[in-house]
């Protein structure tokens, strides 16, 4: 039945939120298509999600030395992530506080201070304003530079993963990650990890949530979307991706644990380092890990993939940010992580498998991008609202979580379920309607 009265553009933000409360029903497995295509929802999302939660902005190994810095995007704005001369990592809005010029235009570098190209105000890499040309004369005696420090961004890190937020009231990062940390230890804390080179960047005409949704819980699509890989024999069988666990915790985080694995997916010679960094339970999971795919709410997806390349098994560990540009466009930014103490040959092969599978040219990646683009187009505009098009997220609704898994969170002993998406959209809805 047509409900032409529904028209989010017409609605006030409050009305739109009321509409979300009614129409979005994660626990029923019912998600309106318009969540992926409506500009108004996107605008609210920007304020209620991206200006409120913790967002990934890089890895500590990208700025190992004093005065190293990188510039990164935080919710659409360039920020400088700098390691001060005191070794502390800080986030600064990359905008001069005088009259708004962008301070730094390099992707990375090493600098203890930044000089503005407009009027030459100078800022220490801790944000302090330390120089104003001709200050006394032109601003008079009682002018106070200290009020002109760069806007600070809260930055916190967990196991080398750096997150920032515009929200001064945000809960501590570790609280936000909660029990999910147990799994992040395996992802990023199992050994000393380092990022290989600069991140890769490319643009997809897709709503960002499709990427997060795909990684947080969609092992099911591998059989078909990535059927070509099966054909090539790079993964054993079409249902290969079914075996294992699907796990989620509070705040929308979730992952899929591919297991068991007859082979050890990581450098043998680092077993001691792994043991020293993980609990016995975590190490046990690591030893049986075939792959691990998940998403830290809202938009940092991660992946440990173990495939056969040139007849040799090799794993690669990567994280990827689905950075929203507009309701139907995102920048995908990917980082490859490797064990710092792995052999250079292992690092080379790990990079090789990453580039082959999940870089912009990746033979997994490319088929996903096609799907993301087409879904976004189908969900755009007014019709999906008028016709109340709803996607089906009921997979596995009949399943009960298992109790005996050694890790935390809600755990299902089969990856083919959409429980994680339901959990993702539930937290998304809570934020949107808060």
């Amino acid at each position, binding site marked *: 039945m047509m409900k032409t009265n529904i028209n989010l553009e017409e609605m006030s933000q409050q009305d739109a939120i009321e509409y979300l409360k009614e129409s979005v029903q994660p626990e029923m497995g019912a998600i309106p298509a318009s969540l992926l295509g409506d500009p108004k929802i996107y605008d609210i999302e920007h304020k209620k999600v991206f200006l409120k939660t913790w967002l990934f902005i890089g890895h500590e190994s990208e700025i190992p030395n004093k005065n190293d810095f990188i510039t990164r995007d935080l919710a659409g704005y360039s920020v400088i992530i700098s390691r001060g001369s005191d070794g502390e990592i800080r986030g600064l809005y990359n905008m001069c506080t005088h009259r708004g010029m962008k301070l730094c*235009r*390099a*992707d*990375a*570098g090493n600098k203890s201070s930044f000089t503005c190209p407009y009027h030459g105000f100078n800022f220490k890499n801790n944000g302090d304003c330390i120089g104003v040309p001709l200050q006394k004369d032109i601003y008079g005696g009682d002018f106070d530079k200290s009020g002109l420090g760069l806007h600070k961004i809260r930055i916190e890190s967990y196991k080398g993963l750096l997150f920032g937020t515009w929200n001064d009231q945000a809960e501590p990062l570790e609280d936000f990650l909660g029990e999910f940390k147990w799994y992040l230890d395996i992802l990023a804390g199992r050994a000393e990890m380092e990022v*290989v*080179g*600069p*991140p*890769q*960047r*490319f*643009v*997809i*005409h897709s709503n960002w949530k499709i990427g997060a949704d795909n990684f947080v819980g969609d092992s099911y699509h591998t059989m*078909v*979307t*990535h*059927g*070509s*890989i099966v*054909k*090539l024999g*790079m993964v054993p069988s079409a249902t290969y991706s079914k075996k294992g666990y699907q796990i989620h915790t509070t705040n929308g985080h979730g992952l899929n644990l591919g297991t068991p694995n007859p082979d050890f997916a990581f450098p043998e010679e680092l077993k001691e380092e792994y043991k020293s960094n993980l609990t016995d339970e975590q190490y046990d999971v690591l030893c049986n890990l075939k792959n691990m795919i998940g998403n830290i709410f809202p938009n940092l997806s991660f992946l440990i993939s173990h495939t056969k*390349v*040139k007849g040799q098994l090799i794993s690669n560990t990567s994280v990827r940010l689905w950075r929203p540009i507009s309701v139907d466009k995102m*920048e995908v930014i990917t980082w*490859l992580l490797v064990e710092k103490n792995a052999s250079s040959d292992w690092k080379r092969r790990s*990079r*090789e498998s990453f*580039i*082959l599978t999940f*870089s*912009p*040219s990746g*033979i997994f*990646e*490319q*088929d996903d*991008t*096609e*799907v993301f*683009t087409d879904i976004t187009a189908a969900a755009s505009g007014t019709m999906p609202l008028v016709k109340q098009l709803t996607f089906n997220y009921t997979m596995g609704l009949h399943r009960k979580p298992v109790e005996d898994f050694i890790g935390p969170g809600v755990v299902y002993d089969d990856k083919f379920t959409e429980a994680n998406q339901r959990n993702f959209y539930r937290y998304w809805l809570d934020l949107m309607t808060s």
Partner: protein
Amino acid sequence: MSLEKMLATYEFEQWLYLEAKLLDDIDFDGWFSMLHPDISYSMPVRVNKEGIERPDYSLDMFAFYDDIELLKIRVDRLKTDYAWAEIPPSRTRRSVNNVRLLEYTPNEKAVVNSYLTIYRSRSTDIHHDLISGERQDEFTFVDGEWKLSKRVFIVDQTTLNTRNLAIFV
């Protein structure tokens, strides 16, 4: 200007034009047969430096970093019925420009620099993508034919403005 050098330049221009035509015509086997078994095929990530220091691309991370085996995998994949990224294929047009012969040993080895602009139109989308960059190629002469033995593609963007690299550069 030496006639021999011109002839050689012409020969590699034509080689690159033929390569472009085969790729634009979705003749992956034809293209693959132009590659040398020892080929190194890479595309580094481009970055923004502080100033004019070069190179302004990464030596550690790449969008392509393939040898002949990996290229074979890509080609085989594209021929399956599941390579959704290119079903149906993009309409591509690889315009080759500014071909310069940097080194040349007849019947042995050649180093060629050229510019490439890829126009990409996909499905019913009325917009197109443009991928611009420079090719640093090396050719080796094998059984009477020049084969591509090395390619480095320097793309002119730090963020690729195309949905994927399901196409070759």
